[in-house]
Every structure is written in C-alpha cells, then in structure tokens.
C-alpha cells in the first residue's frame, strides 16, 4: 500500500498533500516509522504542516477518511524526533492537543548561550492561503 501510494505521488498521480493525509490515515500510532520513514522530504514537510493545522473533530475533506488524533500525534512526534533536521527553518511546535507528561506548561528555553526561540515559519506553497473564514 505504502509503496503504491508513494509511486503514485512520484509519477504525479496524487499531490503531496493527498499522500500525506492518506499516510496519516494508515499509521499505526505504536509504529509510525513503518509509514513515515520511506516518505520523501517534501511529503514530510506537508505532513508536519498538516499536523500543526490539525483540529480534532474539526477537519473537512472532499473525500476519504480523516486520520485520527492518535495517528496525527504519533506522526508529529516521530517527525520532530527523526526528520526535523531535513526541514530547514522549522522547529518543533506545540499544538493545543499536545500534552506533556507533567501537565505543566513547558517554558521557552532561556539562559546563557541560548537565543530566544524564533517564531516558526510554516512552509506553505506559493499562492496558498490559510486564513479562516468568518
């Protein structure tokens, strides 16, 4: 399945966004690497963008099954731990649904030798918009 999906993307039959969402839907949250590891960098970029926009119960698609929250969480965590170095200019970003184990807010890093964390630019294709209506 994964091989077929990636092949379809590589020959131009589905977009990177399409592949990213299809892959999220088939992820086993306990073993996301099986799906995520073979994905091209550009698809990983689209996927991390999707995970940052993801709103549980608030996503709309023109067709297909939406990925579940645990699949999106697992993908976001795995990408940030394993593929973030490929994506220049991006740093891990917290979603509302992210939970750290202590339940306490995580402060920005401060102290000698560290700069304030820059705001994270989102990779967005030229011409695309992400404004919310109403």
């Amino acid at each position, binding site marked *: 399945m994964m091989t077929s999906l990636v092949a379809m993307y590589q020959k131009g039959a589905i*977009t990177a966004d399409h592949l990213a969402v299809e892959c999220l839907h088939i992820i086993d949250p306990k073993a996301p690497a099986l799906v995520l590891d073979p994905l091209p960098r550009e698809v990983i970029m689209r996927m991390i963008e999707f995970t940052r926009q993801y709103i549980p119960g608030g*996503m709309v698609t*023109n067709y*297909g099954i939406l990925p579940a929250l645990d699949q999106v969480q697992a993908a976001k965590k795995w990408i940030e731990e394993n593929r973030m170095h490929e994506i220049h200019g991006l740093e891990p970003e917290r979603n509302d649904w992210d939970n750290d184990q202590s339940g306490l807010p995580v402060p920005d890093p401060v102290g000698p030798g560290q700069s304030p964390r820059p705001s994270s630019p989102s990779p967005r*294709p030229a011409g695309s918009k992400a404004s919310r209506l109403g």
Partner: protein
Amino acid sequence: MISGQFPKQEWWPNPDRQTRTIEEAVAIARRFGVQIPDDVAFFVDEVGDLDANTTARGPRVTKPAGMIVVWSDLVHDKTGKVPFRIRPDILTSDEAIVAVLAHEMYELEQLRPLLQQDGISIEQFGGLTCPGNPGNYHDEAWELADVMVKRMRGEENR
C-alpha cells in the same frame, strides 16, 4: 440546468472491449470536443482506489473547517499539473472516456477562476464538487457529459 447525481446516458463499450491508453483517451476526448488544458494530467487508478460509483477523481483536499482552498492546493508540486485518476474500466469505452473527462474538466474549469482569485472555503469546495448537492458543479458536469455522449452518437447537434 439541474440534473441527477449520475449520468443518464449508458456508455457503450468499445468493440471487442478495446482498452485505450491514457494518451489515447485524452486524444479521443479532445476529438469529441472536450477542452483539456495543458496543466492537467490523467492517470489510471492502478491501486483500485476508485469504487463502483466513482469513475474518476481529482486531488484530495483536507483542511480545518473554514480554511480556504486555492488553486495551488490542487497542483502537484513536481509536475505543476492537476492530477486526475481514472477508473481502469472507463478506458474500455470511448463514450465513457468522453463523458468522464468532460465531467472532470467541467468541474475544474468552473472552479479555476474561484480558486485562482480569492479561493473558497473547504466546505464550499466540497459542496460544489461532491455528489449529494443538487444543482452543483457535479450535477452540471454530468449534464454536460450526457450532451457530449449524445453528440458522439450524432443524436444531438453542436
């Protein structure tokens, strides 16, 4: 004009079930009057993703509710084209080829100015192109497809 959710015309198979390639299908559709722009690409659905009620599909778009869909959401980042997948059995009928490609191109060309200007919400995008919304682009596209097939048969003048 409002029609149904599906085409009214039945499509006759080619003699001896001859199967067209994608390139042949595009040429056949163009010969019978379907306008296919250069920034569109067709592919056979080789993985069986399209079910019995789905003849073809354009790009999947998924966004948070209320977000805007723009043209670049439909375009493949490497090819610069909008991809459409065609169910394999469509390629065994020239009438089906003309109907399905006419349908998809009608929807796309209605959407193009909307998506290339300010964009439309993901809800509007789905509403205009998905079955279940009488009178939307999806309906109009099947109406046009029926006309194109009748023209192929010489049953309707241009």
